[in-house]
């Protein structure tokens, strides 16, 4: 198997978003076009320059990507829609990166767009059902993990809720976030708990939105006159799916393996990172994943969190966008939105939520399957 280090260098040169928001009457086409037009403008290129597009989408349905992108001009480019549960956008980005790295295209678009709606679920249709599957919705799955973490590490419900306080504080500085309001610990913990100790503000609000990034080879950068100082290199791309992990949670096991695959690809390790966007759909996930990624020793994530290590300006800013908890999780766009945020941070263009001196960043999504996708981005020079 090859890694990006053995292929052509790939850079993110344009980013754009439609703000994540509560479901509205706005058509998905408008959401998606807003993000792509912003990404084209950011890169300073016109639509016909784009040779290939990957569209992350779960809920809109068949051919959503082509039905949307034709309104930018039907140029005949290659378009493929990518579904990989919550990691759909991350996987669309990975496909675009691979295509450019492999020399098939010099300019590719990765985007995601979604609106809440009925889910046609493969696992559901497989017909393998346990005793209480219909009673265990995602927040209960994560409530079970929270209770176990508290038991194993002596963590308190207050300490776990502080993840949401930090991420709402970050989201309040992000004009693209679905939740742009700071919350006190008391507000986050306000009863009722929906399941276990998890309250509503510790769970991601699933809404609608769109995100887009344009990736280029060095040939593409030269051809289109891209400002090199704003081009952010993608130095690792890793993706995995389930391996049996016994009683160890599958997302944690998968996160550890996938992240370390990515570290090996580029020779970077936990101490090298400035910003991380991870799959914090529920507060407990941030704690579990920062430990699995090596940013905290096992059981010490709450102490690091309380010490400010994961704040903007701390040792490593975790979810400076607000993460899934505050920025939101419209499913298809989420992984692409993470790449947009890390790119903005590495360009030093994140304004009031800028992590000072950010040079290296990581994006991480897990999804039903389970699957996991990790990318590492680095500012050249």
């Amino acid at each position, binding site marked *: 198997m090859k890694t990006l280090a053995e292929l052509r260098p790939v850079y993110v040169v344009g980013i754009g978003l439609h703000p994540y928001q509560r479901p509205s009457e706005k058509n998905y086409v408008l959401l998606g076009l807003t993000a792509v037009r912003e990404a084209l403008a950011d890169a300073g290129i016109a639509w016909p320059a784009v040779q290939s597009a990957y569209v992350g989408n779960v809920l809109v349905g068949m051919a959503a990507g082509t039905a949307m992108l034709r309104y930018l001009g039907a140029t005949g480019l290659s378009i493929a829609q990518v579904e990989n549960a919550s990691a759909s956008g991350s996987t669309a980005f990975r496909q675009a990166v691979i295509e450019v790295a492999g020399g098939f295209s010099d300019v590719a678009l990765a985007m995601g767009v979604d609106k809440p709606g009925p889910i046609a679920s493969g696992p559901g249709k*497989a017909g*393998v*059902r*346990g*005793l*209480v*599957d*219909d*009673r*265990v*919705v995602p*927040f*209960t799955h994560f*409530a*079970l*993990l*929270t*209770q*176990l973490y508290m*038991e194993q590490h002596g963590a308190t419900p207050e300490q776990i809720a502080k993840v949401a306080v930090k991420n709402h504080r970050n989201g309040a500085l992000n004009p693209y976030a679905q939740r742009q309001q700071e919350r006190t610990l008391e507000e986050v913990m306000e009863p*009722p*708990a*929906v*399941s*276990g100790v998890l309250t509503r503000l510790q769970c991601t609000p699933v809404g609608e939105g769109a995100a887009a990034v344009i990736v280029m080879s060095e040939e593409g950068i030269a051809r289109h006159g891209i400002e090199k100082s704003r081009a952010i290199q993608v130095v690792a791309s890793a993706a995995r799916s*389930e391996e*049996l992990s*016994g*009683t160890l949670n599958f997302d944690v096991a998968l996160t550890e393996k996938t992240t370390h695959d990515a570290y090996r690809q580029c020779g970077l390790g936990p101490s090298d990172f400035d910003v991380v966007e991870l799959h914090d759909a529920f507060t407990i996930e941030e704690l579990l994943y920062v430990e699995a990624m090596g940013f905290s020793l096992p059981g010490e994530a709450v102490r690091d969190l309380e010490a400010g290590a994961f704040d903007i300006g701390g040792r490593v800013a975790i979810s400076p966008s607000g993460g899934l908890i505050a920025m939101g999780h419209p499913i298809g766009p989420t992984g692409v939105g993470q790449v947009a945020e890390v790119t903005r941070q590495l360009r030093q263009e994140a304004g009031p939520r800028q992590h000072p001196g950010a040079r290296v960043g990581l994006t991480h999504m897990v999804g039903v399957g389970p699957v996991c996708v990790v990318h590492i981005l680095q500012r050249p020079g």
Partner: protein
Amino acid sequence: MSAEMTGLWSVDSGTARLNGIRCSSCGLVLFPPQLYGCPACGAGPGELIPAALPAAGRLHSFAVVNLHPSHPTPYTILEVELDSGPLVRALAASNFDPRINDRVEGHEAQVDGTPQLVFERARVPLA
């Protein structure tokens, strides 16, 4: 599916057992049952043998659920590491106040008018 695997559990002389499977190729024990193939070694349906798993194990985690779109709440979900290996999720018996690492065992009970396999703290055997 063979006839003995159509339900998820069986009760025989008052003792509940889960209808799991064992892979005769690698030994993996699985619940819920399926006849697609072994996720550990890839062995085909012919290697997947029905296995009655004692409804007994150790409490791995739990959650009191206060919100659900269709089921009346609250109810408590348990995650039980069966003595035979699989981690299964089940309802708690209504009077059970769970603590992680409790020894638990399952029995059939009516929940919202339907029979369910529910778990609670194992009866301590008399000395």
